[in-house]
């Protein structure tokens, strides 16, 4: 890297070209769909553009933060997140029947969002620290680090976020070498405890699952979203109805169509070929992310890159699965597609970390 080049170029040299290309493609599609889904609302479009600019800037910044510095943020961020979660449990605001929000005076804030990054960072930092002496007790402690925020969020209750955070923690443990017998044993135990979990679930959570099994049972209530979004996707056919031509989308049949249900608009207007392209783009990001992980020089980098890649795809899978009616409706946006600043910034922050791992090849100088 030439020392005398302009500082902006130096900063940009940490940006991974492949990832950037994939992200820009997705954001381009997202913009097109938001334009259509919002009915060309200027407010939505400019808001989306601003969010994108902001998130891309955050990505570039993160790409420049060396992994070893990043890893140090893990423990304080994690501790802060858990403390805030406890704060929510004690003083949180109740909205829509669950206690998820912390009122900070100027803004309401969901600490669970923070944990989406803090937990992998914390675990990756922990395993990196104990890299040379990894033993069973480290996995046990890692499990505890995972369970504390997981259970706190589950209690709010926010099943969707808890599962997503649990998944990210699990991916990290998995890549850190969690023994197969533990994984399989855990799988068996959780399968066996499903009836118990069902009993512990809230009415509305049970209803969501039941609605998934038979949306037509309640076509005007819980089933409405699923029915309308599957109609939208299905009616799109192979080639789609064309940009801004989706009747389901344009005539208001799809709820939340710029945010959580944006895939329904996309599926209706761009068809199965569009869906294939979208899934392919996500897969490409994952492949690139896993490649970065494979070549990462440090355990922290490897774990973060692999976990973030899988995580991104998990979000995409859960969202598309819910919109196309194979998963219960949980409030998970479609990564890099849904309208919404917070999610976009968080995601590109993760992509920035991937880039950072990719471009900071030298080992830490201690």
């Amino acid at each position, binding site marked *: 890297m030439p020392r005398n080049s302009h500082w902006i170029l130096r900063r940009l040299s940490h940006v991974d070209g492949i990832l950037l290309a994939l992200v820009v493609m997705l954001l381009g599609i997202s913009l097109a769909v938001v334009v259509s889904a919002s009915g060309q609302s200027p407010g939505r479009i400019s808001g989306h553009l601003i969010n994108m600019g902001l998130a891309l800037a955050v990505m570039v910044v993160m790409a420049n933060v060396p992994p070893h510095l990043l890893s140090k943020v893990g423990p304080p961020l994690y501790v802060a997140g858990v403390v805030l979660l406890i704060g929510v449990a004690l003083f949180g605001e109740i909205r829509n029947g669950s206690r998820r929000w912390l009122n900070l005076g100027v803004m309401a804030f969901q600490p669970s969002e923070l944990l989406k990054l803090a937990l992998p960072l914390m675990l990756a930092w922990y395993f990196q620290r104990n890299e040379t002496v990894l033993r069973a007790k480290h996995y046990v402690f890692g499990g505890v680090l995972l369970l504390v925020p997981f259970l706190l969020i589950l209690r709010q209750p926010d099943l969707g976020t808890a599962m997503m955070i649990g998944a990210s923690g699990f991916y990290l443990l998995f890549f850190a070498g969690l023994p197969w017998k533990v994984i399989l044993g855990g799988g068996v135990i959780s399968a066996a405890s499903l009836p118990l979990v069902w009993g512990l679930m809230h009415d509305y959570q049970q209803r969501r699952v039941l609605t998934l099994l038979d949306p037509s049972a309640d076509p005007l209530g819980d089933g409405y979203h699923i029915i309308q979004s599957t109609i939208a*996707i299905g*009616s799109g056919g192979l080639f789609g109805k064309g940009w801004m031509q989706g009747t389901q989308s344009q*005539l208001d049949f799809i709820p939340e169509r710029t945010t959580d249900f944006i895939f329904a608009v996309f599926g209706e207007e761009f*068809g199965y070929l569009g869906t294939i392209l979208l899934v392919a783009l996500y897969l490409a990001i994952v492949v690139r992310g896993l490649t970065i992980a494979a070549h990462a020089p440090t355990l922290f980098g490897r774990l973060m890159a692999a976990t973030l890649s899988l995580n991104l795809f998990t979000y995409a899978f859960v969202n598309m699965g819910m919109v196309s009616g194979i998963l219960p409706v949980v409030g998970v946006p479609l990564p890099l597609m849904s309208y919404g600043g917070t999610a976009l910034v968080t995601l590109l922050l993760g992509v920035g970390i991937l880039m950072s791992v990719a471009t900071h090849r030298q080992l830490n100088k201690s």
Partner: protein
Amino acid sequence: MKRATPLKNLNFELACFQRRLKIGGLFVFLLALGLLTRSFYLQVVQHEYYIQRAESNRTSLVPTAPNRGLIVDRQGRTLAENYSAYTVEITRAEMASLEQTLIELGKLIEVTPGQLRRFRRLLSESHEFETVPLKSKLTDEEVAILAANHYRLPGVEVKARLFRNYQAGPGMAHVVGFIGRINDRDLKTLRENGREQNYKGSVHIGKTGLEQHYEALLHGRTGFDQMETDASGRAVRMLSRIPPVPGKDLRLHLDLELQAVAEHAFGNYLGGLVALDPRTGGVLALVSKPGFDPNLFVDGIDPETWKSLNESPDRPMVNRALRGIYPPGSTIKPFMAMAGLELGLRKPGDTIADPGFFSLPNSSHQFRDWKKGGHGMVDLRRSIAQSCDVYYYRLAVDMGIDRMHDYLAKFGFGEKTGIDLEGESAGLLPSREWKKRRWNKVWYPGETVIAGIGQGYHLSTPLQLAVATAMLANGGTRIEPRLVEAVRDPVTHVWQPQAKAAQQTATFDPANMAVVREGMMDVMRPGGTAAAAAAGARYTFAGKTGTAQVVGIKQGARYDAGQLSRKNRDHALFMAFAPVENPRIVIAVIVENGEHGSSTAAPIARAVFDYYLTGKRPGTMKLEANDATE
């Protein structure tokens, strides 16, 4: 315990990690495959199904109700017409508190307790999402007030609706009937007949009278606007339109003024009257007293008013002309006379001696004649003219109940006439077989005796009596009475005469019929029972009076009207046709508790004949027909 050297361990860990990366990649690939499979199922396999669902989501058919056909009398005077009025309607599902809304509405516009009661009854009969009218015929001011307050009254709407107005008043209620709001029972019937689709935009349906019988013609065909609608049901644009086809107009044989004259002639009496054209079966007047205001029913009647109508001892809701069944009394005698002649049991000149009573062989029971001491020597004409009971006691015994039944049945007794109105009664023509079937009892000879003068089991409606009399007038053709004379297509505006109803002709010996007619003319001549009612008529009459007992009179007692309360007094009957040479009108009339056919029923018929044949109005009636009925 320490493990092996960290470096070696690290290589091993790295290999392990690489393997797990591949597993992670495989996992993601499988998830992606799952998504693509699901999308393939939705977008390729099930595409046809979902495209249909999307289409039906997008488009909605908005029904447009057709204008209901008009009903006019033979002179084109309107009996039932439509008008548009503003109605305030309430959808309960769209408001937080119904009571609060009603209070608020009460502050804005005047809502009477009757309207409120009616509203609550309609509400209790409808679903939460249905729109129920609270008050109709809003003034312009009320419409303006409601429009200004629309924003704070969710679920309250002002709508322009078509209503039905029956301006001919209570007298025509039994003929024209009324429409009312479509209820669950109507819906079920419509569904069973496959006509439900045609009522998508309709609020009303014919409930009684012509409105009910000619519903299919009057209603018209509902049109549909195919609209593109958004998720909230708002119409975005019209895609296509099938315009509604208005209902057909009906023109009646009935003359509104003739009807008014007949009603007026009843005075304060209750009863029924049917006037037919014996050549066509056209119903010239059909009166059932008392009437009622059909307008009360159009928008739902309030429960109190309904109760008072339904439970009134005068029973205004019963169409007496069609459903009132009375013993025919002496009006049966001309038909008995025809039977006697045709069966060869009597010759016109045969006479009997009437001592004032009749006894069956080996019986001391005396069947009395209405005239104490009897009529002396009586032949057939005289038996009709003076309504000699003993003559017919004997004839009945000679004939026997079986032949009597079969012969009277030729005149349509015991059978529905087939008039174009619903709810007609068949009356009752007794027979040995009927009694066995109905009561499982044998027929007694004494029952035959009284059947000869139209008493006992025999029951008939004024309409049946009119149809039977028409057969005497037209020489034996049994006509199906028809109210509707012509139907007008709303598009071509051409009146299309209705096809004549099926007619049956019975063969009678004209000589026999002439004798019976002579007897009936004698009734109207000096010495006849209804001579007074015919005095001064400028046309010829043939008639017959009758009396129907309301309470049985004990053996040996005499009927004394003074001792009987009004409700127990005999019903008076009269049937007649005129002019005899070329009969143009047949009348059957029953006056409830009118006592004597000659004094109450016959004058009513006379007034109708006078107006129909000569244009003369009763002296006491000074008015236009419409005024009489308001």
